[in-house]
């Protein structure tokens, strides 16, 4: 009878925080505290979203919202909209038993049931009754490997799980040497292998080309007259010399690469050089070496100039960046000041308007008496209207 489903469930718990995601999720789904995709998302009164565990840890330390520092209580934290929870729960994660070999990836909300019920690599309780050992699910079908059996040779109690390893070490168990067919206790077999007289081994000078191989006990005779062995000290010496020379050669080549620029010297320049050199050495001496010295000198100077130019370029770039930053900062400050000045001017303008309006009103009253009733009505209405608009503008400024 197949064991019931419940006994095959894994007790291995899944830490959702430790999961790895198949693709890096959108930054909008990350908790601002742990920078990982939200787990049990909750929302604050100020509408910020966090992992439930993260925000409660943060609130233990300080009763403010971590994002905008507004006062925040434990009661102000409510579950986030289900849509957010669904978005993060649908993210595809890799199975936590990936290191043991499970290649499954599934939506995050499925991973717990995958480990509990399906994952071939999850540790589940051994199916045998009374046994409290753990075994990976893919091996659960076999018999219990945790019960102790007696080693057939040393009579010691060994768990079935470990018996293969034990056989290799059991002192009572002997194995035959592959070469001399003598029998040795297992722990000594390794040591014997190194000295077994019947093992077929290569000549000591095999890496210099000797192809002779024979049993260890007979090899001594060969060694006494093997030409390769006789030459070994000299061959060894040569190998070492070649190695050091190769190293030196490499170093010299690197130096050469540094000295000789990859581009050939312009032919025109070299022609001019040679002609001047010819003038100076009209005696016709052999001047190749002198010429070469001169060329190398030019090369090196040219290289030096080039590196100088590169360095200067870099400095200029750096200065540019610095200047940009400085200008930007200055600009910001000026903008602020401008805004302040503009506000002040606006205030002054408002006051001036108000003053002019009130002055005009009193003036209009006097003038209107002389001019007649029609103009009184017109100007006073206009004055009132202006004053009202000024007053409302002033209130706006105050706000």
């Amino acid at each position, binding site marked *: 009878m197949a064991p019931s489903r419940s006994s095959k469930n894994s007790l291995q718990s899944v830490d959702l*925080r*430790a999961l790895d995601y198949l693709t890096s999720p959108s930054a909008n789904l990350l908790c601002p505290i*742990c920078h*990982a995709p939200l787990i049990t998302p909750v929302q604050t009164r100020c509408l910020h979203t966090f992992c439930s565990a993260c925000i409660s*840890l943060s609130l233990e330390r300080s009763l*403010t919202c971590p*994002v905008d520092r507004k006062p925040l209580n434990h009661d102000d934290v409510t579950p986030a909209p289900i849509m957010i929870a669904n978005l993060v729960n649908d993210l595809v994660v890799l199975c936590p038993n990936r290191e043991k070999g499970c290649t499954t990836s599934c939506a995050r909300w499925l991973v717990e049931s995958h480990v509990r019920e399906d994952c071939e690599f999850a540790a589940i309780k051994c199916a045998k009754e009374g046994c409290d050992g753990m075994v990976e699910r893919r091996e659960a079908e076999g018999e219990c490997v945790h019960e102790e059996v007696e080693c057939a040779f040393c009579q010691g109690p060994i768990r079935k799980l470990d018996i293969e390893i034990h056989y290799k070490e059991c002192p009572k168990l002997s194995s035959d040497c592959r070469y001399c067919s003598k029998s040795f206790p297992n722990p000594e077999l390794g040591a014997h292998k190194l000295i077994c007289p019947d093992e077929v081994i290569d000549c000591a000078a095999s890496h210099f080309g000797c192809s002779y191989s024979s049993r260890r006990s007979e090899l001594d005779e060969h060694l006494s007259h093997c030409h390769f062995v006789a030459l070994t000290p000299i061959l060894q010496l040569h190998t070492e010399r070649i190695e050091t020379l190769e190293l030196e050669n490499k170093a010299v080549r690197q130096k050469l690469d540094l000295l000789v620029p990859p581009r050939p010297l312009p032919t025109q320049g070299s022609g001019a050089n040679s002609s001047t050199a010819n003038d100076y050495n009209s005696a016709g001496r052999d001047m190749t070496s002198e010429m070469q010295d001169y060329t190398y000198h030019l090369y090196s100077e040219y290289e030096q100039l080039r590196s100088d130019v590169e360095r200067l370029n870099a400095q200029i770039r750096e200065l540019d960046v610095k200047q940009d930053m*400085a200008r930007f900062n200055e600009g910001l400050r000026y903008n602020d000041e401008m805004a302040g000045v503009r506000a002040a001017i606006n205030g002054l303008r408002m006051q001036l308007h108000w003053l002019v309006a009130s002055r005009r009103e009193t003036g209009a009253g006097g003038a209107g008496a002389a001019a007649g009733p029609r103009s009184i009505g017109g100007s006073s209405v206009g004055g009132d209207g202006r004053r009202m608009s000024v007053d409302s503008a002033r209130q706006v400024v105050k706000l």
Partner: protein
Amino acid sequence: MFAQKRLGKELSNIHKSLPPGISIASASDFSNWKMDIQVLDTNPLYADQIYRLNFKFSGSYPIEAPEVTFIKEDGRDIPMHPHIYSNGVICLDLLGTNWSPVQNVESVCMSIQSMLTSNTKNERPPGDDTFVRSGYRSPRNINFVYDDNTV
């Protein structure tokens, strides 16, 4: 576990990009990082100087603030600032009572960078001598009074 996972993410972001004037000096483990910062404008107090910040993370980072101090190392000096003691301790509310777990290494570096940029006073905090002599190295044990809002 929590702190390491988050620091790992920050580190990979830092390796991707950093704002100008901030660079990483060393981050070989998840308990101690060193960052180099540089003031980029022409403030004569800090022109052409690079300063080194030492970050110490506890196991409860980012819930708990990291310990951030300036250190003298590799010829880097302690910047002159009325809120920075000569032993490198920084008096900044963001690193103490006003720490928020939303902040990260990059944002702290930027805060300190702007704190230096806006400073014009070439002085140490009052009582610098006694403070340094009293041997406090860890900012956690100090109850700063964040009284000065001008800088």
